Structure formats: C-alpha cells, structure tokens
C-alpha cells in the first residue's frame, strides 16, 4: 500500500477545498481501501467525510425519500420510514454485499463509484432520483455516464440522494456466486405517469430499458415482459455470464420483479 495524507474534514466546504486531482473522498471505503491495498489506485490525499454530520440521515416526505450520502446500507435497510415508503429500496440495501459491507458501505459511495454491477444505481434510475451535490442537483438519468463514470466534477461531493416514492416497485437480482455483485439486477418502478425498468450488471453502466418500460406502461404484468425481445448486443460477457445469458436474465428478473410488485 502506498502512503497517503489522511484528512478528516469537518464540513463539506473544507473537504471540497482540500480535494484535488490526486485525492479521493472516503466514506465507507468499501471500494477505495481495497483498491489502494491492491495497488489499483493511489492518492496523495484521502479526505474522510464520515465525520460530517450533515451528510448522514434519512428524511421521508410525502413524495420522496431523501438519504444523506454517508448513510450506511444497514441504516437504509433497517429504516422503518424507508420500509414504509419504498419497501423495495430497504430490501435492496439489505441485499448489498455482506454484513461487513452493509455496516460500513454508504449510499453516496456506491452511487459515486458507479460500479456496473452495483445495486444502488438501479434504484436511482428506477426511482427518478435526484443527486444533490454541494453545487447542484443532478437527475439520475444524467448522472451515470459510463463504467465507473459519473457527472461529478473534481471536488464535487454528493450530499444526498432523493428518491421519488413510486406506486409500486421491486428489485430482483441474480448475485454472482463468487462476488455476490449483481450478474443482472432489475429494478422495476411504477410511477403515476410512467414505468422505469432499471438494469444493472448487464452492460457497462446502469440503464433504463425503454422497451420493457414501454411494454409495462401499457400493461403492467409479467406477460407484457414476455413479449419484449431483449437483445444481447452491448451486454457484458465474462467468465461468469455471456451476453446471451445476461439478456435472458434481464427478462427473467424483470418478470420476477413485476410479479413481486
């Protein structure tokens, strides 16, 4: 492990001020720390934002669930308010990684990292989330740019993620038997005026499957999913799952999610 300077920021302003092109923000550290240890990443400065109180916590209103960026997965999973407002979101948090990860990992970290197999990005897309940063508000559709790429600029810190409460929703995934990341995860959310079908794990970045969304907008049932042809083009292919298999899984898990809604 390469040495680095450790800073514990007292507020967002200070954290942003210290940041540079060779720094990283540290919340749960579930990706950052292993990356440093494995020599995959090295930073001059690590800026710890865990101590910033304003970044943590859950607020539920009539229309939305707003979760502070350093809120841990376990807090979302156990939150009575979240369970009541968007039960699928609490269930998603409960299914991330393992107990150690859920006790350390944060929602902001997961969203900022934008791992192609992470769970939370699909929730952001399906639940029309707004990403609140220290400088602006970004719609989820415009936030996730590509593999490990987001709209965040240097020094920009996620403060909270605000999810719209849908009429009904459900998230289903097939965890990789080795890593337990999603080989494919499908988050279906039925809002008043639209249906979103966010897919993670299948491609280089989370996406909203417009064909499935359209079919389900017309007829919210698993038979509507049956009629949609899922192309394997652009899908990931690795030792765990070929593109063809992933395409099948998107359909199977979309159906499971609709049936569980």
């Amino acid at each position, binding site marked *: 492990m390469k040495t680095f300077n450790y800073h514990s920021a007292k507020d967002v302003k200070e954290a942003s001020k210290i940041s540079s092109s060779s720094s990283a923000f540290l919340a749960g550290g579930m990706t950052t720390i292993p990356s440093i240890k494995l020599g995959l990443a090295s930073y001059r400065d690590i800026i710890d934002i865990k101590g910033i109180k304003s970044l943590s916590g859950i607020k539920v209103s009539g229309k939305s669930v707003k979760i502070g960026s350093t809120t841990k997965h376990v807090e979302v999973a156990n939150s009575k308010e979240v369970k009541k407002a968007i039960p699928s979101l609490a269930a998603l948090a409960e299914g991330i990684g393992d107990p150690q990860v859920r006790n350390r990992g944060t929602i902001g970290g997961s969203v900022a990292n934008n791992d192609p197999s992470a769970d939370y990005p699909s929730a952001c897309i399906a639940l029309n989330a707004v990403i609140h940063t220290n400088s602006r508000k970004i719609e989820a559709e415009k936030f996730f740019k590509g593999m490990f790429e987001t709209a965040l600029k240097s020094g920009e810190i996620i403060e909270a993620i605000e999810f719209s409460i849908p009429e009904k929703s459900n998230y289903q995934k097939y965890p990789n038997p*080795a890593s337990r990341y999603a080989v494919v995860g499908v988050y279906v959310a039925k809002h008043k005026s639209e249906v979103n079908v966010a897919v993670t794990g299948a491609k280089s970045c989370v996406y909203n499957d417009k064909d499935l969304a359209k079919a389900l907008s017309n007829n919210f049932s698993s038979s509507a999913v049956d009629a949609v042809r899922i192309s394997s083009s652009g899908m990931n292919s690795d030792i765990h799952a070929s593109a063809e298999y992933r395409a099948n899984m998107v359909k*199977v898990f979309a159906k499971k999610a609709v049936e569980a809604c």
Partner: protein
Amino acid sequence: MASLVGSRVERKEDKKLLTGRGKYTADVNFVNQTFAYFVRSPHARAQIKKVDITKAMKAPGVVSILTGADIANDKIGGLIAGWRIKSEDGSDMKVPAHPPLANEIVNYVGDHVAVVIADSLDEARNAAEFVKVDYKILKAVVDTKGAMDSDQIYKDIPKNLCFDWLLGDRAKVKEAFEKADKIIKIDLINNRVIPNAMEPRAANADYNPSTEEITLYTTSQNPHLARIIISAFNGVAPENKLRVIAPDVGGGFGSKIYPYAEEVVCSWAAKKIERPVKWVADRTESFLSDCHGRDHVTHAELAVKNDGTFLGFKNETIANIGAYASVFGTVTPTYLFGPCATGVYKMPAAYTNVKAVFTNTAPVDAYRGAGRPEATYTIETLVEKAARELGMDPAEIRMKNFPTQFPFQQTLVHSVDSGDYVASLNKAMEVADYKGFEKRKRESANKGKLRGIGLCSYFEACGIAPSPVVMMLGCGIGLWESAEVRFNPTGNVTVFTGSHSHGQGHDTTFAQIAADQLGVPIENIEISHGDTDKGPFGYGTYGSRSLTVGGTAIVKACDKIIAKGKRVAAKMLEASVDDVEFSNGEFVVAKSNKKKTIGEIAFACYLPGTYGEVKSPLPEGEEPGLKETSFFDPANFSFPAGSHICEVEVDPDIGETKVVKYTAIDDFGTIINPLVVEGQVHGGIVQGIGQALYENCHYDETGQLVTASYMDYTMPRADNFPEFDLGFTCTPATSNPLGTKGCGEAGAIASPPAVMNAVMNAIGTEISMPATAEKVWKACNQNKKKNSEAA
C-alpha cells in the same frame, strides 16, 4: 472408566482456535526480523534475459535482493518430484529442473524470479517494483487436451509429456469389449480447482550463527518431510541443523504437504544474511502459486452385458500437472487414480492410461482425495450412464456388480480387506427415501423446477502406507508413522505423533485413544505434533492416514508402556509378571487386592529409590524412566467405502442448481469420535459440491489466471447447502488393531459424482463439472429446442 473411543468428545483444540488464540506461522515474530517479498513472473512463459536489481537495491529499507543466479552460485538444489513414474514403454518420466528462483526461464504466472528482503514488508514490496526483469515472452501452453500438440516448453521434453503410464491389461480389455452387448462411452473434464486453505502459506526462518542452526516456522502438513527435502535436496542445511516447526496450521487440503520455493528461499536467505526472514502469502499469491488440484480430460468406456453385468473398463486420461512436477504431482494421477478407477465393482478386465502433460500453469498436486475423486467421478458417471442406456435403475446396476466376498481382490492393484457395499447402499436408499423421489419430483415440477437424483457408491484406498509397497511403486519416501508416549514423573502424559493436525482434531481423537489405552483421564494427556525437535521422525498428515497409521503407532507405544509397567508393578508388588493384569489404569495382581496405579508406576520409574535404604522398585536390568516409541508400518492401505445420494433442484429459467437433499452413508470401520468424523464428512462433501457446482480455476489462452481472487473464484458457502443426512455402516479394517479406516477425504471423493448424476438426471443432458448456472441454462435451452422441434 468408560471407554472414550466411540464417544462424541468435544474438540479440545477448538477453544483456542475459535477464540483467536491459535498460534500460526504469521503470528511468529523474531527480533531483528526482515520481510521477504517475491518478484513473480507476470508471464506464463518467457525467457529471462536479464534481472537488474541496481535501482531496487537503493530503495529504502532493502537488506538484500537474491535471484536465480545467487541460487545457482550457492548450489541450492531444485524442488523435487517425489514419486518416480515409468511410462508404458519402460522409460522414466521426464521432469524439468525447478530451481527455487528461476534462472533462465519462467513457466507460469506467479513463478518465482527474485526475492527482495527489507526491514519492513512495505519497503520490500516497494523495492520489488524497481527490480527490472527483461523477459522475452514465449507462446504459452495452457490447454490440457491440446498440450501434446502445442509448442514444446522444455527442450528435453518432447510433446510436453512427462509420462505415458499404463496400469492394467489392454489385451484382456479388448477381449472383454468384444464380448459386450453394449459399450457405454463418456467424455469428462475434471475441472482444475484451487485449494484455498483458510490460512495462506507462510514461512519464518531464523538462523542462529552460534549453533549454525536454522529454525523454520512454516505452514506444513508434514514438517519432517520439509526438513528432509530442504536438507537433502535443496542443501540449505544438514538435517541436524534444521528444525522445522509447523505450529497451528489453518487447513491444507494437500497443498501444504511439501515445501515450496518460498520456504527454501527464506531458510537459505536467513543463513546468508544472518537475520530472520519472514514471508506470508497474500491471497493473490495463494491463488497463483499454491499447487492446484485435479485438471483431467478423460475418455472412458464400460463394456456391459444387457443384464447390466460389467465386463471391462478402459480409461484414457490426460492429466495436466502444470509447469513443474511437484512432490506428489506424478503419483496423484497414477497410483492414486488408476487403481480406484474401476470403482466398487467386480470388473473382469480394466486398464487406465494416463498421459501427464506439462503446461504453463501452476503445478498441480494432491488435493483432498488426490486421484481418487477423479477416479470415482469417472466410473460413477459412467455407471449411471450405463443404467440410463440399459433402462435399469442406477441402484440396481450397482448392486448387481458389487463384490460380496471379502477380502476382495480388486481388478488392478488392491486387495480390499473388508467392506459391505450392499449394506451401505441399502441404508443410503432408506435414509434418502429413494422410493419417494418421484413424488418429490412432481412437487418440484409444480414449482417450475427440475428435480434430479444422483447416486455414488465409492471405495478408496487411503491410510497411505505401507512403505515397501509405495516405494516399490516409485515413492521416494517411506510412509509409516511414529508415536512416542512419554509419562511425566507426576503421572500425566505427553504423546508425540509424527502426523500433523491442521483441522482434523488429533488433539482430541488421539487423546481419546491414549486415555483408553493407559487408563489416564483425557485432561491429563497432551498431544504434541509439528516440531521436528520434539518427537521422532514422522510423515505428516494427508491421504487420510493419520489415525490408521499414526493412531496405531500410539496404541503400539502404549502397549510397550504397559508391558514395562507390568514388569515394574510385579517387582513392587512382589508378584510374578504373568500374574499382573492391567485395566482402567491399574496394575493388579490376579486373585489379590494388591495393585498399583499407572501413575504410581510412572513415579517409581522416574524416582527409583527409597529413603533410608538402598532399594529400587525396578527389576534388575530395567532402565529408569517411562517413555516408549513405536514406528508402525501397516500391511495394507485402508479402504473406506460408502454410498451417497444427492437430490438437486434446477431452475431452468436461470440454470441455477440447488442441492436440496444429501445423504451420506459411509463405512469408516471403527469410529473413534463421531463428532469429529461428521465434521470431516461435512467438509469433504462441501468441497466436493464446490467442485461440482461452483469452483473453477480459469486461465485465459495466454496463461493469465482469471480467477485469482474471490471476486471470480467461487467458493462454496454455507447458504449453498441443505442439512446433510449422515449415517454409518461398519466393517472394521483388518490392517490395523483399531479397525479404523480413513475418513478425511471420503466426502470430497463421493460428492462430485453424486451431484453431477443428480444434475444430469434433472436436465437429461450430459454435462461436465462445474455445473454452473449458465452451463445448465444452455443445456436446458437446447432440450427445449429439441422438444419443440420434435413436437
């Protein structure tokens, strides 16, 4: 005192191991210690043109950097293949040189090129980045099946062929096949797996310039073997100047039987720099450089009569032994594989032909079961296929071909002393509710799941010994076992065993045996192992040998103690030796109330005199002290056997297979501690299911290890399994006085074919291990297509 043998005594060692008080090699630290970091080859095959350490030597904290040139200069010998195999044409196996640090060529990703030794691990690792190795990259040979037709890796080894070995009689097999009504054929892949012991390998070597002695702490299943190899073959230090200690060891599964390059290099370097050298593998190094297991490509055929009688068997296997011939790398696919390949059956004619090939992958060596799981997977999937093709019940075809007379002369090598294969299969079918399967299948179908049932009846040859036999077959060492039973003057007992416990529970089971033999409470018995300076020479733990061979040595040493105790008691009690009887820890003169406890005898042996008069309790000529040693070399292997029945549910939409019911009925002869044995069976089954459904070592075509972390290498986990239904039948072994048979590997031998037969029964298609979700999904899809075309 009630007998402890047969009772569920809780494991004495668990308290320390489960509360973090175990002492492992990584926990050992010396004053003035340095840290080693190995520079490893990033290429699967390359020529080393130059190793430049100039810049690295200037990095902070660096003490020394050693390379293959230093190994050659110091005449440090290479790593060895411990078992000599001859080809069918009589020629010797061909084995490449394997220097502990590569000199001219590297042959797998992870191969050792140089070692950087520094004051801290961070400094060593940092400096290693500046070791500049100039490689000329060569085309790697990776594929097992294609290895013989690929580029030649070593200039003296044509076709990359280590040996082309035959066991059995081709002419007899040909004759048998000519008489057959039907020939059943199968093509199989026995997937390569990575052992993944919980504790990574480690070494810490300390050199004492005053005594010129090296003390090597290491993660070994077999410290005496490490000492003899590092002394006699690597030439690091004479045996009497090398002490090897394997303290608590966190699992081995075969991968820690023998020393690796790292232990040799640390010991040699410690002497060279006169400072302790510590190395602990990180997990990636373990994936890359621990010896792997299995990796066979097999074509097998079974000649049968229409009534299901077996007439003959042939087995053509290509075994990938990796880049170098490891210590047990050559015996695993030959004498540990071929003799068991005809399974638990009467088989009038058979042969096994194995072509062992070198590839640019990590060496392959013994892994839980070593050869016998590969053999059992071959015969048991073939027998199941025979049943399908003949329209017979898989249990019926097995029953028909079981031997019922024991001793049973098995087709190729073994004379099996005892067994009752009919009894274990009958019991397994009863416990598994074999008859109720169709009903359960319908229930699964109602949920949209495909349910399958698979059987496996196995036997195996373990308790590895006897020395004259294994040495005749090419083994470079003897395989007896030692025990020393030492009474301490105050009456408690230390038992030294040459075997080694790294999870097997010897501290408990061996103490149960000694407690019963000596009539001493189990709390007063300490089992000591793993230190070449403490007990007599021994051969360690692997091949399910420790109890049958090492446990017997303990019994024999106890017999000697009791014999001496009788002589001393006779003198003290003024009786004839023949009148002294020993039971429950007391020496009693027959038909009298005169007696001495074994503790009193021990005390007298160590303090042989009386105050105020010259009087010894010892008979004339008897030496003081009470300590006896025994070396036991059994007359035969032990032959555990049994039947396992597995049921799976397959979700055809995603191809996921779940083991929903698992029954294991095993015959391990006499069982010392059912609790420990059940633990061994659980672990073995889980490892076997891991191989059948999840684990797969994957190298890409350039020889890069793709599955080099737990992100990609699928270990089985607790939530992958149902409760197992275990049961036992018992036919005691006749080759050891305890009547025991080995139990450590049986689960890993029996479960892969049981699971795969169940999967194939569920989906109706032949597939090879591992039955991963995508593979099963594809097979289900093809079946759907076929069915719709037929309709």
